């Protein structure tokens, strides 16, 4: 019995807060540990803000994940923005094309168990992350 993914349109800073709250609620529901909850919420916060700031807004879908052995949370961030031209550069710690610390994308990858990115210049970016219960 898996519940359907919940969707949030991200068009303002408030929506990033809503994403964070939704992720926290679902993370508590699947019984992620406190550390993992915080890590996932932080990763979601980073990626949702990227969707907003660099992707020009988009959608975030948060839903339960189940690979038969473990349960977890899967979050999909997608935007129709400019895409990322140089992935290696984007994942370099400290590199930013905006005014941030340059740790959001690379940091978020370290905070989750699975990280998948699909991007093409001019076509937008879709990032799927999963965090499993230990």
């Amino acid at each position, binding site marked *: 019995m898996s519940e359907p993914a919940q969707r949030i349109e991200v068009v303002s*800073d408030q929506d990033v*807060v809503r994403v*964070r709250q939704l992720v*926290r609620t679902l993370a508590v529901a699947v019984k992620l540990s*406190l*550390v993992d*909850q*915080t*890590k996932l*919420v*932080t990763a979601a*916060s*980073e990626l949702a*803000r990227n969707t907003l700031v660099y992707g020009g807004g988009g959608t975030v879908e948060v839903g339960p994940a189940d690979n038969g052995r473990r349960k977890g949370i899967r979050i999909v961030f997608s935007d129709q923005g400019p895409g990322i031209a140089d992935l290696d550069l984007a994942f370099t*710690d400290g590199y930013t094309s905006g005014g*941030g*610390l340059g*740790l*959001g994308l*690379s*940091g*978020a990858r*370290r*905070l989750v168990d699975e990280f998948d990115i699909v991007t093409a210049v001019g076509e937008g970016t879709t990032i799927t992350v999963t965090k499993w219960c230990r």
Partner: protein
Amino acid sequence: MTLSADEAARFAVVLEDHQEALVTAWTERVASTLRGRLSHTELLRQNTELRRGFQQALAGSAQDLSGEPAAELRAQLAELSSTRARQGFSATETAVSIFAFKDAVLATLDAQGTTDATTLRDYVALSSFVDEAALFTFDSYVRVREELIADQAEQLLELSTPVVKLWEGVVAVPLVGTLDSARAQVVMERLLQTLVDTGSPYAIIDITGVPAVDTQVAQHILKTVVAARLMGADCIISGIRPQIAQTIVALGIEFGDIATKSSLADALRYVLARTGKKGR
């Protein structure tokens, strides 16, 4: 379907001739939807005013709500929505008050016993005019509510960022909740001003109440610390819980040589030890 000049004029007469019956019937209907949360006298007064507004708009042959003859009515409707919104009535309850006017008019027409096709056509035209008025109240209601929310957000911004004096020469900022750019700006301004006012060489930023520390929050805190340093004050960050510490490490955020402590008490002890004062 808009109201023609003839129809408007005919209704202006109906509204004038049967004003008492109309207002009574209308008030009764509204009262039943509001279930006694507004006094009967108050409702009666509002509806009497509104009836006059409708009557004047129609007498001025208003064809829809946007025209000049309906300006007075629009002002009354906006006023009504504003009061209802502030009194905590729902948008539906507010709009239904206007919709009920149609029932009251229908009851009046029934009492007259005129049931020909012209009356029907007239009624339908008036009905769409009233619908417009009700939608207008809905719009104004939402606008008033949005203003209320904006006001509250501003008040919250003010409320949630106190800078407290912990000890002689030590001020603390307990951060609670989401630290967005607007709040970070307020916090920074308050802290820097307090540093000047109190001449404190130490400031403790406590993040116990911040649920998630992401790169944006960290960046705001770092900027605040750097600004305080430029003014000659040392900052200590306290309230770093285990899960936050692990997240910060994974994110790769460097706090550099900024002193960090797990609790506010530790931070205070640290400051007192450095200043050579005795604290327990």
